[in-house]
């Protein structure tokens, strides 16, 4: 059962790849990333928390299906950072030459939620913790995957929350929030999530 589920997921994933040129570009970018990440394993330094989170951030995009009504933003796959940016240049370096579903991944820093139109993934910095609930309420209508490393993010209605477990970056998923926004999370993603909650945000 599990295998067949995996195959159907794989097929779905392949269907996403609509433009071969972009696929090739993405492949090349992936290879480059792999070289950056994994070359010379003996001397390789352990990636920092934010480097891992930056990589996870765009990889999430590969396991999410947006509703067809989502406004198109051309051949770009924008990842937006709201509030204080913890990644700095790491994010830009990580997503450089990467592609999700054949679209070029770009990093955008935004100061207000209004600028988040067209974003596919919205990272909300912990600096916005106080107005998180309000932000999330608005974001629900924007069909955007909300990610944060702020504590209690899921409880406040966020979709994916980075957690640190034994110095390893893991993540938890609020499936209800994602579904409410019309996003379809792949079971493959849920499989590797530390925790998947389905209760409604209060």
């Amino acid at each position: 059962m599990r295998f067949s589920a995996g195959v159907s997921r794989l097929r779905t994933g392949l269907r996403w790849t609509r433009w071969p040129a972009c696929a090739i570009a993405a492949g090349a970018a992936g290879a480059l990333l792999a070289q950056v990440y994994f070359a010379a394993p003996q001397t390789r330094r352990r990636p920092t928390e934010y480097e891992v989170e930056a990589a996870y951030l765009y990889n999430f995009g590969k396991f999410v299906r947006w509703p067809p009504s989502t406004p198109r933003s051309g051949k770009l796959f924008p990842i937006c950072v709201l509030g204080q940016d913890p990644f700095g240049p790491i994010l830009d370096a990580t997503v450089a030459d990467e592609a999700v579903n054949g679209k070029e991944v770009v990093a955008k820093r935004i100061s207000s939620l209004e600028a988040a139109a067209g974003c596919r993934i919205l990272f909300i910095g912990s600096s916005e913790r106080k107005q998180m609930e309000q932000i999330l309420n608005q974001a629900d209508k924007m069909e955007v995957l909300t990610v944060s490393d702020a504590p209690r993010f899921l409880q406040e209605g966020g979709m994916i929350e980075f957690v640190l477990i034994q110095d390893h970056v893991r993540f938890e998923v609020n499936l209800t929030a994602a579904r409410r926004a019309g996003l379809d999370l792949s079971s493959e993603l849920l499989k590797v999530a530390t925790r998947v909650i389905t209760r409604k945000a209060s």
Partner: protein
Amino acid sequence: MAARKRNETSISRRLTAMNMLVSGAALLLACLAFLGYTRISFKQSLVSDLTIQARMIGSGTVSAVLFDDAHSARHTLSALRASPHVLYAAVYRPDGRRFAEYRRDLGRPSLPFHPPPAGKVQAHWFERGQVTLVRSVSFQGKPAVVVSIQSDLGQLHSLMVRYAEIIILVLCGSLIAAFLVSRISQKSISAPIVKLAEIARAVSRDTNYSIRARPQGRNDEISFLVESFNGMLAQIQERDNALEEARSNLEERVNLRTAELEQARESLRTLSGQLIRTQDDERRRIARELHDSSGQVLAALGLNLALMEMESSRLSPQAARALSDSLTLVQDMTKELRTISHLLHPPLLDETGLAPALRWYVEGFSQRSNIAVQLDLTPELGRLPRDVETAVFRIIQECLTNIHRHSGSPTARVRIVRAAEAVTVEIHDDGAGMAPGADGNSSGPSRPGVGIQGMRERVRQLSGVLEIQSGKGGTTVQAVLPLLSADLGPAVV
């Protein structure tokens, strides 16, 4: 019956063996081809199964690799426990670092990373009863995972063993079926041949060429064989008949010729018998003539001379002496004439019988030849038929003459034994024996004497047997003359 059995077995068994060999070989070949095909297709399906598993594992572990969740990957891999033939499986990152692995048995070492060759997503190889498959799985257009699966070929081996068992069973069953079918179907082939062989044996055993093989009513080689065989028999029979006819013709002619010869011989025999009788009659007549006329003349002459001698005193002394001489000459001549006459045909033979005639003759012979002759006669010899008495006398006369002329024997013995139905005459001497071929039994270079031939003819005329035995101890002539009851005269004088 035993021969028939043997014959039948030799042809039938050979046909059956050939059929079974052919069908067995064809079946074995087919089975081997099937086995080989099964082996290849099983390997192909095994590889395709492994490919599916590798793809499933690959797509199932992509997220685990991307989000560095080895636990999830191991969980995915652990599903392989459902495939007991999978020995080992591993998930690698695209750069070759092992991410997670699965072992069926705890002690199994990890496999080193063998990526598929450049430009290919998958590779597999068989070695040491195991198959290893490596597949690179891409996600979102990028190589994301390399999966390696190793499986044993136990399934293949057990399948092969099971198929081999089935093949052996099928082979045995098919051979039995082929045997039965062949036994039934070949009867139409071997039975006519066996029948033909039987007929051929009967023909050669009984030399009976009138037997014919029954035609098969088909149009194949066997009926051609039967036809040819029958044709051959007909020819042989024809020649046999012709030969038989020629033989009987020849026999008839031989019989005819033999009868002619027999007739000629018979007339010759009659002729010689007549000759002998004529000779005997002639001798008797001459002897009587000599005795009756010449003897009377000589007697008269002697009487006259005796009368003249009474008057001899009146004659001159010369004349008287001549007269005396003449008288002596007449007396000698009378004696001589009588001897010749009696030798030609002893009057005693007709008058008093064989015994006195023989006694007279033997006595005279001994005197003339100085050969001591012993004469043994059966006391009750009596009178015999005239032909027999004449023959016995002439045989003895001839033999003694021969003894005197040729043998040089000083003695001779004559024996006559009379039995109820035959009289046996035996003349023996102690001389040098006869020269080979002189006994008249063969017509060698030295012609037998006419005397012996005459003896034989006499004996044959009387249906008797003449035997001559000659050697260093002398010669014995034995004649046995049958006495026919009609001719048997009284045994009195």
